[in-house]
């Protein structure tokens, strides 16, 4: 299968809705496309807009992978995943931005960071389609490594470097759960598109599948040799892709794993050359892709 070498750093990859193209959001502020079968480059688009002279930087992408958020200068933009066109633009929050996420319907943007006057405490802020903050809540001392909004848009979840998992109501910021069961930080999370599970993974090389009704661990998936940095459910919620990194040298070869969600079985191990930045399924889950190291993209027929 094709291995693509891009001329710029690829921050994240996703397939187009029709599955024919692979899309990469790149650090030079371009949205690049490749043919999903051959890996041949297609037209790229500049991520225009925003006040700054610096290129638009990816800050978040939606659960459904059909939109993403960027930052340019002092504003944040929610964009279409295929064209890069701006749906909505927000004033940059007062927070020193650390991580962000957007809801599947593109209506909500959540950001985490530190307020300028804060010493150690981190804050999560939810901005709704009015462009104004709906709420701001405390989010611990360690900082938020990863966030996600549930497919129904009702729950915002954040995983911290302090190993805590917090869930808030997107309606009013009520803290629904503060889970302190894990010992180490999460670096990746994804809701299953059917809403049944939240998968989290990180420094202990394990994927935790949380039942979103009870917020108990439903299953632990073990078998990845490296710390896990990327994770994605298939559109039918039945498969998972995960990718990792070696903690000593990021240039160490690692593996992308394909898992069956119901059994926890590893269906396939796919070696890649470096740290995995993102993983993605095609809409029919017959293909998988990963952005690797800085400029490489791997494509597989699953």
């Amino acid at each position, binding site marked *: 299968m094709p291995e693509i070498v891009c001329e710029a750093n690829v921050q994240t990859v996703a397939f187009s809705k029709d599955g024919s193209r692979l899309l990469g959001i790149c650090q030079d502020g371009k949205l690049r496309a490749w043919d999903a079968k051959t890996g041949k480059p297609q037209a790229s688009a500049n991520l225009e807009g925003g006040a700054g002279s610096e290129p638009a930087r990816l800050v978040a992408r939606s659960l459904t992978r059909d939109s993403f958020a960027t930052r340019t200068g002092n504003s944040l933009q929610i964009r279409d995943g295929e064209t890069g066109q701006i749906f909505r633009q927000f004033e940059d929050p007062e927070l020193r931005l650390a991580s962000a996420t957007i809801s599947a319907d593109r209506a909500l943007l959540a950001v985490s960071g530190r307020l300028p006057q804060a*010493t*150690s405490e981190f804050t999560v802020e939810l901005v709704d389609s009015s462009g104004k903050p709906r709420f701001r809540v405390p989010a611990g*001392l*360690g*900082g938020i*490594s990863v966030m996600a909004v549930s497919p129904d848009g009702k729950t915002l979840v954040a995983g911290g*470097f*302090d*190993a805590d998992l917090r869930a808030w109501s997107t309606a009013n910021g009520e803290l629904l759960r503060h889970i*302190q069961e*894990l*010992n*180490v*930080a999460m*670096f990746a999370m994804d809701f299953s598109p059917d809403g049944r599970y939240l998968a989290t993974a*990180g*420094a*202990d090389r394990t994927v935790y599948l949380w039942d979103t009704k009870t917020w108990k661990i439903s299953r632990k998936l073990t078998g990845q040799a490296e*710390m896990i940095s990327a994770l994605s459910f298939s559109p039918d919620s039945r498969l998972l892709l995960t990718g990792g990194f070696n*903690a*000593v*040298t*990021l*240039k160490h070869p690692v593996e992308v794993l394909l898992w069956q969600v119901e059994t926890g079985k590893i269906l396939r191990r796919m070696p890649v050359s470096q740290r995995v930045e993102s993983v993605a399924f095609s809409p029919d889950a017959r293909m998988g892709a990963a952005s690797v190291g800085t400029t490489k993209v791997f494509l597989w027929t699953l």
Partner: protein
Amino acid sequence: VEITGMSTKWTRRDLIENCITRGLLVAGAPALSQSRLFSLWAETTVAPGKPTPTEVLGPFYKKGAPDTRAMRSAGAAGFPLKIGGKVYNVKGEPVQGAKVELWHADEVGLYDLEGYKYRSRLSLENATEYAVDTIMPGHYDDRPAQHVHYMISAPGHRTLITQLYFATDPFFEGDPDKHFKKRNIVGNRDLIRPVMLFEKVGAPSAAVSFDIVLEKL
């Protein structure tokens, strides 16, 4: 003896010479006992009034560390290092009852996430001083400056998350004042502490004093 980094290898002689030229090493140390020397050294570092600067928690924190001063096992690889200090409030008064949690990478720059090697959470109870026996942490790709992570809490005080760096680290090229901003890794010059080296034949070791100043809630 070699202090091994990812890209630079310094012999202990290089390191000591460098320390002497920078005034980081107390020359003629063998005349005094280690503990006496250490306390003299420590007395010069107290700077109440200003809370200790904060740093990020980092990605490799692990909950549940044991309460142990002996973080280094006998015969462990790596350069033996003692770290100690007092916990103060901003008025310069010693603070009792602190929990001082420390964690750092091993000699090759790896964090133990399976177990609790080089991780400790000390309960000071009535004491106001902490001390651990450990090794000099190694370097790793993403964060090439040697460091020890800290999380300190005490009743009535704001929890502090910070990091300790070493003035002898080859990363600072022998001049922390000049190079502390390199690659935006170290947030504050005050977190880079002098290292005292002990010249015991066949068993050299290092000591660092790092006092903590907490803000009241």
